[in-house]
């Protein structure tokens, strides 16, 4: 996920302080990984440098200064472009698993074991997501569904790989 674009998008509804941005981000998107303050401030200074946000005001109370950020026109265009651009589907997991299976076959280990263990691990994650979905609101359900469909796609690949292990074994030993 692009934190910069997400923070920019959150600023579209009105100027906010860094702390408010973090809170809004965590509430809406940070279910598993809340933002660190450092991430917010480093992202905001980058956006500021690139002219995508501007400082809308500075409050100085008893504590440190608090900057309020507002999105610029260039920032709005940037968010629009980001939203309109599809994400690249990345076969991130398959390549690692493929390497493991091939290595197992090459070294005469049980590749089916690796697939079974991976399936169990995937299912464990899917159970947690399914449970969260059951207890959550519609936003939770949609977020969890997205993750669930991805895990399911990995699992389908695992099943297919398991069904082809004999062929793969013959191929890697030739």
């Amino acid at each position, binding site marked *: 996920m692009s934190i910069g674009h997400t923070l920019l998008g959150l600023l579209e509804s009105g100027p906010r302080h860094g702390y408010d941005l973090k809170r809004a981000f965590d509430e809406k998107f940070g279910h598993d990984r809340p933002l660190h303050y450092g991430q917010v401030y480093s992202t905001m200074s980058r956006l500021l440098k690139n002219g995508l946000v501007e400082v809308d005001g500075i409050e100085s109370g008893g504590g440190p200064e608090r900057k309020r950020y507002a999105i610029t026109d260039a920032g709005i265009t940037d968010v629009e472009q980001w939203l309109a651009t599809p994400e690249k589907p990345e076969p991130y997991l398959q390549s690692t698993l493929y390497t493991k299976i091939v290595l197992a076959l090459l070294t005469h280990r049980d590749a089916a074991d690796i697939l*079974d263990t991976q399936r169990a691990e995937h*299912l464990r994650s899917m*159970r947690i997501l*399914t449970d969260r979905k059951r207890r959550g609101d519609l936003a939770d359900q949609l977020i969890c569904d997205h993750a669930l469909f991805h895990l*399911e796609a990995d699992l389908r690949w695992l099943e297919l790989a398991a069904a082809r292990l004999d062929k793969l074994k013959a191929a890697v030993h030739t």
Partner: protein
Amino acid sequence: MNAPGGSLLVAEGLRKAYGPTMALDGAEFSIHPGEVVAVMGPSGSGKSTLLHCLAGIVTPDSGSIMYDGQDLATMSDAQRSRLRRSDFGFVFQFGQLVPELTCVENVALPLRLNGAPRKQAERTALEWMQRLEVDDLGRKRPGEVSGGQGQRVAVARSLVTDPRVLFADEPTGALDSLNGERVMELLTEAARSANAAVVLVTHEARVAAYSDREIVVRDGKSRDMERVI
């Protein structure tokens, strides 16, 4: 096999051949009361044969199945049939409701077969239909309801006798994902609240995610993944 203490249904060394084809080749299984166990594996791996053996529908060539301390192999056919009616519930992929009966009559049917009076049976049936959110379909016939609704009616029927084990063979196989998930949600909720164990045969990971743990069947052999990890 070291069956976990308090298991309700335990199978050891199950073997079953259909002609030259070995459907089960030393399969093992155990389940506790109130537990949902998914039986997974590719087509033809022996999942359904395992379920049919556990439910006493098919007799294995060798191996033992103990239900609540009783050996299924030592029971007569009549005793096994009685056990299936009183202690087991069944949900299949499709084609399980009697088309001539209304939905409430379908759900009440197992109670009627056990000798319950019609009014009492239908009252209990309606309570279960309420839990499965299909109580408004009581007077309709299966042909007049959707696939998802019909499956919920079938789940209500499978639970109406308060079974201790519910056998579900691809219960959402004929449904779209939204309907399938709702059926799984209601099925597992209803079974857990009744402390019924569920043996859930499925090849779908999203369905298996409603279980507490999974058994993987491959080439007639089973593997309890909880003990692997």
